[in-house]
């Protein structure tokens, strides 16, 4: 079988398109590259949605923690304490068990032109359940990062905003929030890289891989088990992840440049690659 055929059969295997059976014998290098790469779709999926939703939740939490009102401050503090103080691995297990216990019902959501049924049993599936856990987890870490940035916003910036007659949401939207993002961005980049790495835990915790559709590590460990040779599959996935990490750094580098575009050149903070060191 040529490598092109393998790509056709297994390229989208991780999302259920293509050949049903996984290769069992005569596993060659091409099989491993294609299937592990196919699994990477899930890693990107989880990382993307966790970060996309987590970003907004984290902003809320940071503002809540910085608030002077106890009613906002205490829940934000408790949320950060619980999700930052316990391992993501345990959170996956715990939430999976909670999702299993939730009664299986469907809710009709009327979108005007079409009605969809949202079912609670989706929560026990990795695509929804694990994403929710990842969102909660990343918002806690990001919330703490944003909170730290909020506290180090130069006083002068806020006083200048006051002098211009800005207040309330307008001041937040136009002065506080962009400055907070700018200050937090290097740490936030590290958090994004960590989130990308953490997506490999999903199919090794409570969440089952449905019809053997798993992420990159799921297939890598499948090959390592089948061939009893860890020296091929794991270096392949390591390569993929190094490439993924570098692309995240590039993407966030663009964001950093945009956020810093008004800052004089010699004051700009350069991003330093130090993943997990801020976790």
């Amino acid at each position: 079988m040529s490598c092109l055929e393998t790509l056709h059969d297994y390229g989208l295997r991780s999302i259920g398109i293509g050949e049903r059976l996984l290769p069992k014998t005569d596993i060659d290098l091409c099989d491993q590259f294609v299937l592990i790469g196919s699994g990477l779709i899930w890693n990107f999926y989880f990382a993307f949605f966790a970060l996309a939703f987590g970003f907004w939740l984290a902003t809320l939490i940071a503002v809540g923690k910085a608030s002077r009102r106890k009613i906002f401050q205490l829940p934000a503090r408790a949320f950060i304490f619980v999700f930052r103080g316990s391992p993501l691995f345990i959170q996956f297990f715990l939430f999976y068990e909670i999702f299993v216990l939730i009664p299986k019902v469907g809710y009709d959501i009327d979108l005007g032109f079409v009605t969809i049924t949202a079912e609670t049993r989706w929560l026990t599936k990795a695509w929804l359940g694990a994403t929710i856990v990842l969102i909660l987890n990343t918002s806690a870490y990001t919330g703490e990062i944003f909170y730290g940035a909020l506290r180090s916003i130069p006083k002068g910036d806020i006083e200048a905003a006051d002098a211009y007659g800005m207040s309330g949401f307008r001041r937040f939207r136009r002065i506080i929030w962009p400055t907070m993002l700018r200050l937090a961005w290097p740490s936030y980049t590290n958090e994004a890289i960590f989130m990308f790495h953490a997506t490999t835990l999903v199919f090794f915790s409570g969440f089952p891989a449905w019809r053997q559709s798993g992420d990159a590590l799921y297939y890598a460990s499948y090959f390592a088990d089948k061939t009893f040779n860890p020296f091929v599959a794991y270096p392949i996935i390591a390569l993929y992840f190094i490439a993924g990490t570098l692309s995240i750094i590039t993407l966030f580098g663009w964001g950093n440049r945009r956020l810093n575009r008004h800052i004089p050149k010699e004051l700009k903070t350069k991003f330093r690659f130090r993943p997990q060191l801020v976790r």
Partner: protein
Amino acid sequence: MHMCADPSTLDGFNWWLCYLTTGKQIMFYESFLTVLALLFLTAPVVLLLGFGGAVSRRSHFAPLRWFGAAYTNVVRGVPDIIFFLFVPIAMDQGIEYIRHKIKCSDWDEPVRQGNDFVVCAAAKMPLGTSPQWVHEVYGFSLALIAFAIVFGAFAANTLYGAMQAVPRAQLETAEAFGMSERQVFWRIHVPQMWVFAMPGLTNLWMILIKASPLLFLLGVEDIVYWAKELGGAKTTRFAYPHPDWRVYYFGVLLVFYLFMTWISERVFVRINRKLSHGQATLGGLTDAEVTA
């Protein structure tokens, strides 16, 4: 206990008392010690590896410097769980391969046969005839090495940064006093770097705590293993039947970890206060000096 002989007759408080003291429950409690053992045995190895990595990154000998840089960068660019899955099995096969070469040099069959890894019986690690505890200790040691390799890379990075952060003037003064390069390193540089390394090492300890449940993936019978095992629904065929209690067992684990990170944070605050005492940093000044 005597009254626990027939659990079906028990109810209420006594049932709980007996349930929580069964042999398997005791093993669950003991597995918490496994996690603590991992943490406290790994930490010194991590520091040692980190120190070695940091020193090799500063070495005058280029290949050693490249090795140090490659070690820290590759480990940090890849999810730690990949190393946890890779290192134990790779080490195991490496050890068995070397033993095979030494003990069974008369074998002419290849070690890798298709999808099999075949070594002679004498080269198996541990030997098939060894008692159960040897297997457990061996598995645990491999896990410990995997943890040490991963976290050693992070520690190397932290210590490297800390070594760079020691003010140059301090080292120059030592040189001016006529100390040799070695003396400057051990008497001035190393003692002074710790205060700069503390924030990074604190963070590293927290990450290590939160990575410890991954022991489960390495086949060690740790707290996650027992929580799954004991929490699963037990039918009436068991002495203590109960429905699916995994959610409570994992809840207990969550609380355990929250406690661990909380207590660690408090301890580190105290250590930091001690270390920065008398240092010319903001943390080293007394309140009176700061306000003055």
